[in-house]
């Protein structure tokens, strides 16, 4: 059965929300197992009197709405069914392996969800008097503490809303630090293989972006980098482990060189999950790194967000962090520091003046993600997080070595991979592409890997299994991937029309972009609802 749009089944007069007076259970119900007696109440409802009916005059002035909005309503049974059916057209980590390299689809523990819904976290307003939210502030502060501990850094900005927002935060810290020195620089160096957000962020912050070349091993070319450094270079943005799945061996040397040239090192922490508990980026000279709580620390992706991107900072950059922040003082109390008192607080308790570059968002950050991430960190602990990194790396290497005989693995010789294994399309039969392989993999019951990224490898396929897959699940996936790879090499034309067994066949993205249809255009069926247009069959 096809699921229609809410606009096609919902009417303007239908609602799944009732409004009636609070229950008048004065005295409660009477009676007992054997007796029908006791008080009973017989009040009738008063369905939302208007202000006028209450003898009040509306205070909307001349702005009271006169036109219909055009929103469809469904009753609760229809709503639950609509979204349940829709949900079943999705692939999800709960259904199977989701090998999206650089996106890290690991299991989302259900305890996290339970904790995030505790009333003291979920039902608290960000502007409540601070004394009524000390526990919430402790969560922020405790998470901040462990993020600092795990990365070996000096401070952390908690408010960035997602990874790219965190990148921006880091770059703005760098810019503020340079400006504080009166040192205006113009260029940020970014490797070709970087996430697209890196150059976009640098550009947004007013920098010119220049590429750093890579070696044939898939790592940053240290010598080329050194050659480019100079007084115009504000810093570099490096992903480590990088998007080829490799650890940047020369990270410390890079940092030293950049620092020597007066710049700062931004590390894209998207892949921190590969090294958490085994390596502290602070030990490698990093000045700023965002942490995707939904990648490393298991908060759910939710079909595209919300994310959360706290940024850990070196001592050099910490004073420039955005407001607000939380801090625990020597007396054990956790404070919320906002624009008003940042300077005085900092001077009083930490003996230094804040030079915050400003504010990145209303309120204090992604509390709902903080509770989840903290829950996850405490669940795993020091030993567990180390094991997380080890198992993630072991799983990725197992995939790499189980497929390198069949699929082109351009950096298989560069040493072990970290959290993800990179393959290319070399060897595919003429006319068959990475896209075709990916769509054929859908027919095998799997979500495809990341395609065509990083750009440095032709027809790239980036596979990240994560640590929450069992060996049995990997073996099954490897078998499926081998089978489609063999078909791609042999030139099986049927792959070009894959997927065949998904909720949809291949979708026409060109048409979508050429004639964008971005909102439903019809009118709601007045006084009832449109009968569904498609019927029967599966």
């Amino acid at each position: 059965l096809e699921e229609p749009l809410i606009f096609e089944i919902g009417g303007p007069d239908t609602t799944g929300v009732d409004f009636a007076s609070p229950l008048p259970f004065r005295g409660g119900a009477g009676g007992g197992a054997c007796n029908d007696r006791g008080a009973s109440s017989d009040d009738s409802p008063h369905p939302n009197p208007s202000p006028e009916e209450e003898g009040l005059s509306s205070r909307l002035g001349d702005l009271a709405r006169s036109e219909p909005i055009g929103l469809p309503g469904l009753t609760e049974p229809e709503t639950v069914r609509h979204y349940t059916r829709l949900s079943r057209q999705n692939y999800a980590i709960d259904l199977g392996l989701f090998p999206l390299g650089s996106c890290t689809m690991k299991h989302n523990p259900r305890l996290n969800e339970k904790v995030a819904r505790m009333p003291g976290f979920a039902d608290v307003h960000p502007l409540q008097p601070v004394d009524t939210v000390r526990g919430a502030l402790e969560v922020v502060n405790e998470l901040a503490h462990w993020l600092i501990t795990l990365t070996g850094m000096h401070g952390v900005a908690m408010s960035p809303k997602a990874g790219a927002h965190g990148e921006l935060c880091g770059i703005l810290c760098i810019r503020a630090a340079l400006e504080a020195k009166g040192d205006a620089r113009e260029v940020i160096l970014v490797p070709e293989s970087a996430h697209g957000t890196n150059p976009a962020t640098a550009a947004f912050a007013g920098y010119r972006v220049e590429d750093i070349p890579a070696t044939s091993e898939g790592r940053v070319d240290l010598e080329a980098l050194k050659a480019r450094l100079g007084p115009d270079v504000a810093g570099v943005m490096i992903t480590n482990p990088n998007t080829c799945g490799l650890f940047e061996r020369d990270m410390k040397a890079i940092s030293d060189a950049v620092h020597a040239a007066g710049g700062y090192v931004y590390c894209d922490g998207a892949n921190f999950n590969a090294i958490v508990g085994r390596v502290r980026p602070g030990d490698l000279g990093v000045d700023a790194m965002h942490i995707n709580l939904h990648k490393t620390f298991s908060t759910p992706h939710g079909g595209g967000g919300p994310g959360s991107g706290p940024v850990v900072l070196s001592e050099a950059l910490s004073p420039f962090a955005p407001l607000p922040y939380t801090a625990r003082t020597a007396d054990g109390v956790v404070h919320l520091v906002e624009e008003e008192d940042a300077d005085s607080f900092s001077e009083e308790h930490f003996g230094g003046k804040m030079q915050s570059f400003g504010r990145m968002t209303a309120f204090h950050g992604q509390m709902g993600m903080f509770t989840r991430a903290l829950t996850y960190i405490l669940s795993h602990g020091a030993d567990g997080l180390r094991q997380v990194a080890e198992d993630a790396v072991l799983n990725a290497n197992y995939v790499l070595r189980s497929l390198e005989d069949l699929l082109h693995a351009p950096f298989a010789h560069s040493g072990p991979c970290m959290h993800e294994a990179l393959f290319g399309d070399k060897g595919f039969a003429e006319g068959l592409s990475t896209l075709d392989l990916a769509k054929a993999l859908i027919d095998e019951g799997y979500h495809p890997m990341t395609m065509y990224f990083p750009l440095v490898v032709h027809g790239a396929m980036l596979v990240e299994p994560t640590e929450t897959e069992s060996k049995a699940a990997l073996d099954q996936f490897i078998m499926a991937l081998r089978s489609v790879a063999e078909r791609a090499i042999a030139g099986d034309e049927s792959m070009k029309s894959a997927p065949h067994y998904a909720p949809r066949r291949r979708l026409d993205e060109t048409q979508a972009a050429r004639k964008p249809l971005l909102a439903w255009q019809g009118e709601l069926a007045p006084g009832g609802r449109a009968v569904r247009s498609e019927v029967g069959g599966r």
Partner: protein
Amino acid sequence: MRYLPLTDADRGAMLEKVGASSIDDLFVDVPEEARLTGPIHGLPMHASEMAVEKHMRRLSKKNLAAADAPFFLGAGAYRHHVPASVDHIIQRGEFLTAYTPYQPEIAQGTLQMLFEFQSQVARLYGCAVANASMYDGSTACWEAVAMAARITKRDRVVLSGALHPHYAEVVRTMAKFTEDAIAGAEPALQSAPDNQGLIARIDDKTSCVVVQYPDILGRLPNLQEIADAAHEKGALLVVLNTEPVALGAVKSPGEQGADIVVGEGQAIGVGLQFGGPYLGLFAVRDPKHVRQMPGRLCGETVDAEGKRGFVLTLSTREQHIRREKATSNICTNSGLCALAFSVHMTLLGEKGLRALAAENHRLACIAADRLAKVPGVSVLNDNFFNEFTVRIGQDARAVVRKLAEDGVLAGVSLGRLFPGNDALADGLLVAVTETTTEEDIETLASALEGALS
């Protein structure tokens, strides 16, 4: 460890296949000096679910939950009743644990939902097109400013004085780096917004005017006259809404001429959550501006068999294609919050949203009238929806703290929002929703009376 499926036997077999003698062999590329040899210092070892839950519950109980007190806070985050079915649906594993719908053939659930969401937001805002959501209202607001600059190729921004100060601060912060010039102010305690003063600041270098509706004091500015004035100077009108429920009762920004409408969607379906994650809404009145929009967009198309389907589209605007030339560096949207919003809005429908808005307004009117009777209290607003400003003749910040000690969450003091501005210090923002009872209002009135006497 309950989240790690590999057994030691598995690990052994896999190391063998990989050709490594130990897990350390896989970390050979990490320089010796950077390798940690034992578990990281300071963090406890793994703990049982029960122990972690207990710890987190203890922290949770150190907070005063809104349900446990008469509650009147708003100022950009509103407490509404969220139907139980909303949380049921967003916890479906297929929504909760899905990624961005990059493979549309197996992500139609998320994609159709986003298409429905965009359609709902566009209608609510009186716009042609809405995107698939932003981080939150404040970042959406800045993105609107940046978009206006791209469209008008101008770099002077006029902010209404009655803009939420956090939002204004975000715009100012970002503008420091993008070198846009920001003209802003703080509000004056007047019964109506100063539209004429705002209009006077628009000139032919203005890229956009940013107006909040209802504004930070709860007042409802007439947007049409601002739109007309802006358009006359070739500037765009950006309207910010932080209480979508209001739009069930008042005219939409789009129908009053707003060019870009942004907002915070948290009030529908998402909940308070101490400030995040929230839901940025972003829409444009004129479809020709679509290609300048930031963020993800979901569009309708067909599959190879001609069946209707949905995909992420116009991604040539986005960072993963355009890199440094993208409209924005934004990557993530707020998908799960968008789902919550869309489900709640579907449950409400036109009828429910209007009834909800009416109920909010009704109770707010009762509250305003009741508080006006408290000696020393006066209601500022000529008009309002579900939030209004009262003046209480003394430092509201201290009064709010005092009332909190007595278990009444009285509202947001203007002193908290605009610290250091003495002219605003006696102002208190009071928000009333359908979750407020008349008994709560009475409690607040009595408590205020006690505190002020």
